[in-house]
């Protein structure tokens, strides 16, 4: 703690050095039609003055020399607002921006210096334009942020149609996914084909692949920060859609006009309704569906205080007759309070709860039992943004996290062929402090220097075991509930810098260390709701990842295109894998089944983007490598991580054909995943067995796919009611991409081994009807 206080003290003293005769302009930027606050809008003093962008709550603060100034406020997709002010004192300026009406011709706004990728010292960050999502083709026509980010460089998809993703060679459990600051543990519905994020309810998505800012911590590879819409403060509005798989509806509106609002959004699939048509009683009593709700309320208490309450509830259910049922889902609840202490200090206080549970219920004649598992956490976060007089920015804060992991336990009913089996739950506390200083040294150089301190404590009560190198149990210790079983302290430096070469190009560099104390154990190719979590303990050490990256950014062809090239190298410590044939189910000695080692990944990412005009989209290409070394796997030699792919390319294009029609196209190509194929065969009990040697030394066939979409929005004279049709074709040339490769004996000659390619989806058309009022 003393280190922390000293650290803050040093940072606080920094701004005092700067001069102080300027006045401060502060306020919020919001959308004129809905009152929704805008994240990342730019506020800039004309003629070479200072600039600042709004934070994740739409707030800004800018120091301006006294006298007459013209301020330009801009945001992608909105009309620019110019304000001429005569400053004689500090001034509050809340700005409303108007959304650009559809532009058919390219409009390049002169003299507008957006907070472009060129100028921000932040690197490795991608923002998704939620508006754009509706024109990017996706499977079943269900637009999805998690599938769209897989089209970006450095992000590899977890499999056909899957919402799982890997960032820069990291593990699937190393992505911190936040929904209004609450951790979402399981991001998929229906075994991965849909994400838990209903894009109707989402305002902003940012993905950090590198140079991870100090305010984030806990997952080693990336941060995906998803913010929900606050709800229209001015009018009651609705939006919805009816698709092949699911229907959705959103309502938003003011509770008190201009001051408070609500947003409520829901979604449900109805594939299982077809089951009801079956004459078979067992089938028509079966189910297979998911639903989710997002809700948010916000109250602008006064000029300085805003309160937000938001929540998510989602559930998947599948069952067969009354014999078997299986359901799982996430819940999150966030309460936030934005407070403006003074013009320069903005504070956010959050209280967050989130959990993930699953339940299995089996009522067969020979087995009658229930399995349930829960992981839950409670967070308290206090964050400050301090805007200095020299227009630098200091962010600092304290985060507290309490986590409880209750692994799958079996409770048997009476007269059943199964015993009760309880597995002890595990508790942990994380206390983090951070500070991060964004410093504009001069016109060319700006840096973000930060440090996060992570304090992890594994808590009792419980019995903790020690294991030898072969995983054999050799010690046992029992702790009471007040005991600290293990303490880990980690310092996580974060640093990034930008050097502006000229008005058209810049270079950036960054370094970050991130640690992780929650680990997901999965030994199947796709992640399942039943995957188990463990927290750091005496045996399991925190995962530590160091990343360096460097990049080159430039505008090409005027400002119409943005080119980014980033390269990275990552060192990973304390990575986890299992022993051969590990028993991960309800195993008291689970930690004895784990193996620990290291990883490395490196790569080069290119993306050429066009955001303006009739034709927009991007071309991205990643060249990368990701490896692990975990004794005794692969005899202790380095081996390819499963998600290792040499080439990964996507081309996404959106074209506005006319006022009514917009076309979309997405092409993807990547090297097949690293897999283990048999390298020989032998016979045991007269059946063929396959002989495996090197881990992940073989390759799936290359993957490629082309998706198309078209959106039709008829013009109508009714002002309020709009409807549109989205048509899509997934896998347009019906490529049979291998989901699995299976080796089987030939039915006639069992000495001949046939190689089967199992493909999941062929060509899939889709249609969705959307409406808005």
């Amino acid at each position, binding site marked *: 703690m003393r280190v922390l206080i000293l650290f803050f003290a040093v940072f606080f003293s920094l701004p005092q050095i700067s001069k102080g005769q300027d006045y401060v302009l502060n306020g919020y930027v919001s959308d004129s039609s809905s009152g929704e606050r805008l994240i990342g809008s730019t506020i800039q003093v004309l003629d070479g003055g200072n600039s600042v962008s709004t934070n994740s709550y739409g707030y800004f603060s800018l120091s301006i020399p006294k006298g007459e100034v013209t301020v330009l406020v801009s945001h992608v997709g909105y009309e620019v607002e110019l304000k001429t002010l005569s400053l004689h004192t500090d001034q509050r300026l809340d700005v409303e921006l108007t959304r650009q009406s559809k532009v058919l011709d390219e409009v390049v706004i002169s003299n507008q210096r957006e907070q472009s990728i060129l100028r921000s010292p932040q690197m490795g960050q991608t923002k998704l334009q939620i508006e754009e999502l509706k024109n990017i083709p996706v499977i079943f026509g269900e637009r999805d942020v998690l599938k769209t980010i897989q089209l970006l460089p450095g992000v590899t998809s977890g499999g056909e149609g899957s919402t799982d993703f890997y960032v820069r060679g990291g593990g699937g459990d190393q992505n911190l996914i936040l929904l209004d600051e609450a951790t979402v543990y399981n991001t998929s519905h229906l075994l991965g084909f849909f994400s838990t994020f209903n894009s109707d309810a989402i305002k902003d998505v940012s993905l950090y692949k590198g140079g991870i800012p100090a305010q984030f911590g806990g997952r080693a590879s990336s941060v995906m920060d998803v913010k929900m819409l606050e709800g229209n403060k001015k009018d009651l509005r609705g939006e919805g859609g009816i698709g092949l798989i699911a229907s959705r509806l959103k309502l938003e509106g003011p509770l008190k006009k201009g001051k408070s609002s609500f947003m409520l959004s829901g979604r449900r699939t109805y594939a299982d309704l077809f089951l009801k048509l079956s004459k078979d009683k*067992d089938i028509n009593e079966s189910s*297979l569906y998911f639903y989710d709700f997002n809700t948010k309320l916000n109250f602008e208490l006064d000029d300085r205080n805003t309160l937000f309450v938001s929540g998510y509830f989602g559930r998947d259910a599948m069952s067969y007759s009354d014999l078997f049922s*299986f359901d799982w889902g996430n819940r999150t609840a966030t309460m936030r309070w934005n407070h403006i202490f003074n013009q320069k200090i903005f504070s956010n206080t959050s209280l967050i709860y989130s959990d993930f549970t699953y339940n299995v219920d*089996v009522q067969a004649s020979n087995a009658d039992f229930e399995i349930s598992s829960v992981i839950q956490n409670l967070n308290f976060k206090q964050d400050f943004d301090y805007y200095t007089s020299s227009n630098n920015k200091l962010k600092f804060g304290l985060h507290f996290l309490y986590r409880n992991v209750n692994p799958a336990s079996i409770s048997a009913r009476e007269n059943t*062929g199964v015993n009760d089996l309880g597995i002890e739950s595990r508790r942990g506390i994380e206390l983090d402090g951070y500070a991060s200083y964004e410093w504009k040294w001069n016109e060319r150089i700006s840096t973000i220097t930060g440090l996060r301190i992570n304090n992890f404590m594994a808590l009792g009560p419980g019995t903790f075991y020690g294991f030898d190198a072969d995983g054999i149990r050799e010690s046992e210790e029992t702790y009471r509930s007040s005991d600290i079983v293990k303490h880990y302290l980690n310092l996580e430096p974060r640093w990034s810098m930008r050097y502006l070469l000229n008005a058209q190009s810049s270079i950036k560099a960054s370094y970050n260390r991130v640690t992780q104390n929650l680990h997901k154990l999965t030994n*199947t190719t796709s992640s399942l709701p039943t995957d188990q979590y463990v927290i750091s303990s005496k045996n399991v050490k925190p995962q530590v990842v160091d990343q360096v990256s460097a990049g080159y950014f430039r505008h090409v062809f005027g400002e119409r295109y943005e080119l980014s090239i980033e390269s990275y190298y990552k060192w990973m410590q304390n990575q986890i894998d299992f022993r*051969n044939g590990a028993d991960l189910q309800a195993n008291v000695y689970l930690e004895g089944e784990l193996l620990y080692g290291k990883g490395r990944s490196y790569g080069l990412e290119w993306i050429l983007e066009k955001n303006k005009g009739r034709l927009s989209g991007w071309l991205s290409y990643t060249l990368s490598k990701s490896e692990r070394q975990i004794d005794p796997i692969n005899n202790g030699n380095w081996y390819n991580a499963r998600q290792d792919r040499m080439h990964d390319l996507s081309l996404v294009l959106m074209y506005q054909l006319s006022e009514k029609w917009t076309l979309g196209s997405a092409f993807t190509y990547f090297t097949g995943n690293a897999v283990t194929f048999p*390298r020989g065969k032998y016979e045991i009990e007269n059946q063929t067995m396959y002989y495996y040697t090197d881990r992940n030394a073989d390759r799936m066939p290359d993957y490629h796919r082309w998706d198309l979409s078209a959106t039709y929005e008829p013009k109508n004279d009714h002002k309020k009611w709009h409807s549109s049709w989205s048509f899509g074709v997934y896998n347009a040339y019906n490529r*049979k991409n291998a989901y699995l490769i299976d080796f089987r004996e030939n039915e006639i000659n069992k*000495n001949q081994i046939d190689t089967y390619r199992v493909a999941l989806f062929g060509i899939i058309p889709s249609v969705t009807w959307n409406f808005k009022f």
Partner: protein
Amino acid sequence: MKYIIFLCSTVLFLSSCEDIIDLPVKDAEPKYVIEADLHNLSNKQIIKISQTTRLNDVRPKKGIDQARVQVENSKGQINRFSHIGEGNYINLNFKPVEGERYKLNVNIDGELFTAYSTMPKYVEVDTLGFVEENVFGKEYYFLVVRFQDPPEEANFYKYNMSVNNGAMEFINVSSDKFNNGLNVEHRLSNKDNDLKEGDEVKLTRSTIDSAVYKYWNEYQMTSLASASPGNPTSNISNGALGFFSVRHTEEYEVKVPGFLK
């Protein structure tokens, strides 16, 4: 867990399709395979020793003829096995007994392979019969084995089945991890899940030791969905594939009865 995997794979394969493709596979250096499966059913015991072959080899296996094979009990009494061709080694006068720990010694051109296995006590079956179940609209027959699991130790069971005098096939192994000491029911079907009325079923039920259970359990858990398939962990030293098991086995012969409803 099995239910979950079953349901998940059903969902996955509702829309999938498959075809045979030509995919070049690499070949590994040959490796020795030892299948030493001893039992209490007769005095005749066979140990098979072979080498792995290429995946596309027309031969199912390559027998090793020059090995020296023997099994030793805890008192140092040695049973020698003699080669009868194609890598099969035989001893016609050896019937292992319950509770005894045996040691396998195999010498192939000076390379030594050893393993230990203990014959567990047998757990008697209380009832044996058939049930008929409807799964997703189709009727299936299952052979039901009921028995009292002994609470005092961990027990491991292995089933093999032959239908209408066909080949004896591996069905599954199970442990009493979730039902120790209970009155347990195992439901079994043949490999293709197509038992029908009138089928003559021969079932061998064995109790096995934990290392042998581990071997077969890893084998049966390796599915298409495994992230990284590997060779089942062998209890034989020096990196040989295969296993050494001294099982306690009973055989049952039953006929699938008429429609039960």
